[in-house]
């Protein structure tokens, strides 16, 4: 192992900044900025909760923060990155997960605000999709039950009426009505 290589084992937890000129292999957890002028390798067990910058950055683990490579960034299978990725050359392998702004060579400095606005706007898209889907569902629900319920009510009312309507000839309805009228009449008579 060369002298200018730092290795953070899988059970190692660093809370703070890591800086320097050497290369770093991280298989543990780092809650703090990693600012290295050498190469940075984040192993599959690596977990970083802050920005990472290095010359060549290889990610096989998880990073929640921005990645900056002065030479290149490689997201390999198993990488999980939530944050912006900037480097002259960027490779994203199959199996790597990324959510963030990506910028490769050339095109000057992407304004942070823009990146944030895009990242801020990003959640809106699924939200819009879901809301659209929900709206569609609501529409369909609204239309279908409306179509069903409204006629059902309409149908129900005439049906009840229709049910009530036939009874009149039947004695029950007459009895009820007759009792009511009698009671009403009695009550009314009593009141009066």
């Amino acid at each position, binding site marked *: *192992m060369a*002298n200018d290589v730092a290795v953070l084992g899988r*059970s*190692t937890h*660093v809370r*703070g900044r890591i800086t*320097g000129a050497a290369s770093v292999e991280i*298989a543990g957890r780092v809650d703090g900025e990693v600012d290295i002028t050498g190469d940075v390798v984040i192993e599959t067990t690596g977990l970083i909760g802050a920005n990472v910058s290095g010359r060549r950055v290889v990610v096989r683990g998880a990073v929640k923060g921005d990645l900056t490579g002065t030479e290149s960034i490689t997201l390999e299978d198993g990488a999980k990155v939530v944050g912006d990725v900037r480097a002259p050359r960027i490779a994203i392998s199959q199996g790597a997960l990324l959510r963030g702004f990506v910028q490769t060579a050339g095109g000057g400095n992407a304004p942070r605000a823009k990146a944030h606005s895009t990242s801020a706007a990003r959640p809106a898209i699924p939200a819009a999709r879901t809301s659209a889907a929900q709206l569609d569902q609501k529409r369909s629900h609204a239309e279908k039950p409306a179509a069903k319920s409204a006629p059902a009510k309409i149908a129900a009312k005439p049906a009840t009426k229709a049910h009530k309507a036939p009874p009149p000839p039947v004695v029950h309805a007459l009895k009820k009505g007759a009792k009511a009228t009698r009671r009403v009449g009695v009550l009314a008579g009593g009141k009066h």
Partner: protein
Amino acid sequence: MASTVIGAGITIDGEITTDEDVVVEGTIRGKLTAKESITIEAGAVVEADVVSGPLTVAGSLTGNITSSDRVDLQGGAKVIGNVKATRITIADGAQFKGNVDMDV
């Protein structure tokens, strides 16, 4: 072989916690806690409280040392701080300023 190496040229400002052996060749400021052995190589600069198993110092260490095992200050080591350990060796040529507490 140690599974955590803080190589020369690396600076860590903050707290390091690990269950593994640690070899420090670079610079650490803050706190260093390891269940296993810590080796501070010549040329390394540690300005931190150190909690460890066996500790070997050949570089510069400023801070209090608490070891569950032995502490070896090798020739060329420069240690400023209190040492609490079950055993301690101070080699010829090691610089040391601080209290020693060997609780028996």
